[in-house]
């Protein structure tokens, strides 16, 4: 029809309003996060200094990456139970290689390449063989976790001090890296491959009929998820200065918690990365606050559980309330 004609002038923009609408339904979460930030700052005024801000964001950083990694797989219609093992593997590879002949650069490349490759392989198995993600990633969690233990049977290895100080020192460099990663994600979402993740996750058959390479889109999501997971592991190793083969275990469930808090759905194609990030920040702030209040660590688990069930139940109750 008229596709070849020049565009009419004065077409209202699309990208900006679309981005703005992604915040809908998240304002409540933003408010809670802000409240926790304020409480945290009152309890611990040092938070407002550069050093305090660096610490806060460093505590948040690995869970932020893990939450994004989990959200990616969930948007693709799956779930990852191997995420924690991937974090451990990333930490182990970094601790073993960076102080060796490969050096910091070589170790970094190895960590990222391993994440990308293992993530892609997981995705390939889930997508091509049409197996349930929960089973495949459960098996992968043993395989990957076992491999991490084979490489480094007990905590050890080392991260060069300079690199450790750079990432986890008193400058908020981790926050800068997070900003860059979020920027890259926005760029990815502005490509046809990235945006198609929503269509492929929500209704794969319809997406296929619309001409989307559904399998490729979903495998790419798993690969990127793996990349983010091992990167989180590398950071954890830099924080502690050495590698621990089971340090990532808690990240599996915490990443799911962050994504769920952020409104990422279990059925695929619904949710936002900004939601998952806010969810991970809330979890990490909560741990901070409870620590400063002197509550025992066990109480954190109880509070975390209550908050998650409230976060998923409240929207449902609101929908029911509107119906009746």
């Amino acid at each position, binding site marked *: *029809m*008229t*596709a070849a004609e020049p*565009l*009419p002038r004065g*077409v*209202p*923009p*699309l*990208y900006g*309003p*679309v981005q*703005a*609408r992604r915040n809908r339904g998240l304002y409540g979460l933003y408010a809670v996060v802000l409240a926790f930030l304020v409480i945290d700052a009152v309890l611990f005024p040092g938070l407002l200094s550069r050093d305090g801000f660096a610490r806060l964001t460093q505590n948040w950083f690995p869970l932020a990456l893990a939450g994004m990694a989990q959200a990616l797989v969930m948007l693709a219609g799956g779930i990852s139970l191997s995420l924690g093992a991937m974090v451990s593997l990333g930490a182990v590879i970094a601790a073993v290689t960076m102080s060796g002949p490969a050096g910091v650069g070589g170790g970094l490349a190895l960590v990222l390449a391993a994440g990308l490759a293992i993530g892609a392989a997981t995705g390939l198995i889930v997508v091509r063989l049409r197996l349930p993600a929960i089973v495949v990633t459960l098996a992968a969690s043993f395989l990957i976790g076992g491999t991490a233990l084979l490489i480094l049977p007990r905590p050890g290895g080392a991260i060069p001090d300079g690199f450790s100080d750079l990432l986890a020192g008193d400058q908020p460099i981790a926050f800068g890296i997070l900003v860059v990663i979020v920027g890259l994600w926005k*760029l990815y979402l*502005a*490509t*046809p491959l990235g*945006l*198609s993740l*929503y*269509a492929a996750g*929500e*209704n794969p*058959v*319809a*997406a*296929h*009929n*619309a*001409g*989307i390479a559904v399998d490729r889109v979903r495998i790419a999501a798993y690969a990127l998820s793996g990349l983010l997971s091992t990167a989180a592991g590398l950071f954890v190793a830099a924080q502690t200065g050495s590698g621990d083969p089971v340090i990532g275990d808690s990240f599996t469930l915490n990443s799911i918690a962050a994504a769920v808090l952020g409104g990422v759905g279990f059925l695929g*194609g*619904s*949710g936002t990365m900004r939601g998952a990030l806010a969810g991970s920040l809330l979890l990490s702030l909560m741990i901070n606050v409870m620590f400063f209040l002197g509550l025992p660590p066990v109480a954190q688990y109880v509070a975390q559980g209550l908050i998650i069930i409230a976060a998923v139940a409240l929207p449902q109750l609101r929908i029911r309330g509107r119906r009746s």
Partner: protein
Amino acid sequence: MTSDDVDPVAVAPLIAAQDITRGFFGNPVLRGVSIALRPGRIHALLGENGAGKSTLINILSGGLRPDSGRIVVNGAPRGHLTPSDARKAGIAVVQQELSLTTTLSIGENIGLGAFPRRFGLIDYRTLAGRAREVCGLVGLDEPLSLPVGALSLGRRQMVEIAKALFRNPRILILDEPTSSLSARETGILTDLLGRLRAQGVAILYISHRLNEIMALCDHVTVLKDGVVTADRPLAGIDAAGLVRLMVGRDPGDLFPTWTAPPAAPPVLSVTGFAAGMTRDIALTVQPGEVLGLGGLVGHGQEDVLLGLYGAIPATATAVRVNGATSLPGRVTRANRLGIAYVPADRRREGLHLIHSIATNLMLPAFARQHGLSLRRRRQEQGATAVLAARLGIKGDLMRPAQALSGGNQQKVALAKWLPHDPRILLLNDPTRGVDVETKREIYRMLRQLADAGQAVILLSSDTPELVNLCDRVAILREGRIVARIERRDLSEAAIVAAAMGAATAPAGTGGAP
């Protein structure tokens, strides 16, 4: 009826299917079907439920391979199309089942799979401009950034149409595009199709609304049981003539002889009944009677059955069900009141496929036992053996139910209720996708049940079934009973005409059955 500047008959077809045959699990759905879509012509495809329309569309758009026959695109013959072949040939389909991503915006949905790019990124400016343009064509004035999930079904349908137009189709296939549209939206679509026709687009239009087809289309292909019964210009044929071309299957000896039920007070009667999309339903059925529920698929027939069964919320102004004066409200009470329901989708709703045939047959009995009472294996074996013999199910009853053919599965889904002697049997399209022999057996079983004094409500998408099995048939359209046809007036033409709202509605409408 065609536009002035194009003489469609003289122009070669953009796409033609020739002598297409396709079956599913041994049931032929299309048998030697040919159809040719020419530029500048709106071509109607008509047929009853299950005549093979959707299968034909899927073959034309690359979603299905034909078993035999060929497809000629721009003069080049080939055995089948892939979805990407179809896209390259300029074929766009507006599906009946919406295929939009609810979390993405209108604009993003329109461009999905065909995004304009700039440096590898989605060019949102170009997308906005072109999406606005196609939205203008279909009268969508919502902001393009609105998520599709926030739209009503009718507006989503318009987005679906805009999405098809975005690809600049040379061949546009619309599968019941107006079923969820308002009158105004239908008018916009009609104008649009007229303009596309003038631009030389070939349009295939599937609808159950005969007056729409009469007003809009140039040419018609009628399918009946997978065979083309007409391929002709629409000029010179009226709605009644079209209906006659769609119906009239020879039932042969498929159906048992009908017998009139003895006069008896009704076992179920409701007035002012509403459930799901249905409103103002009045129904009565007496022992020994088979009451048919007809109409096009999805006009509320299933909601009536589910509401009566207590599976979905329902209300009614007056109720008598087997002595009770209120609706069952929930399934366990419906069972106690002697109501049994056999769902249409036996694989998902009717049976536990991985469990044994015997377990499936015994499930309603388990539900009646008290909490932790022990099972009596020997009695169960006896009961299941008797049922299996009655059904003609041979072989080991400990096999999983999925080992049975579709027809035999349906028999199990029906038979599991028999030991409980239900007074009211609700059947949801019991012969959908079932082979002829099993159909015959199911019909015989149904007749025996009615003769034994059970009341049967039979929902069916198969018109001959309604004509040959029922004492009376109620036709639903858009959630209301629009016609009640007594046995003496029952004919396929009467049922189809009432379901499609054609003017040839028979005498005997109105009045509670």
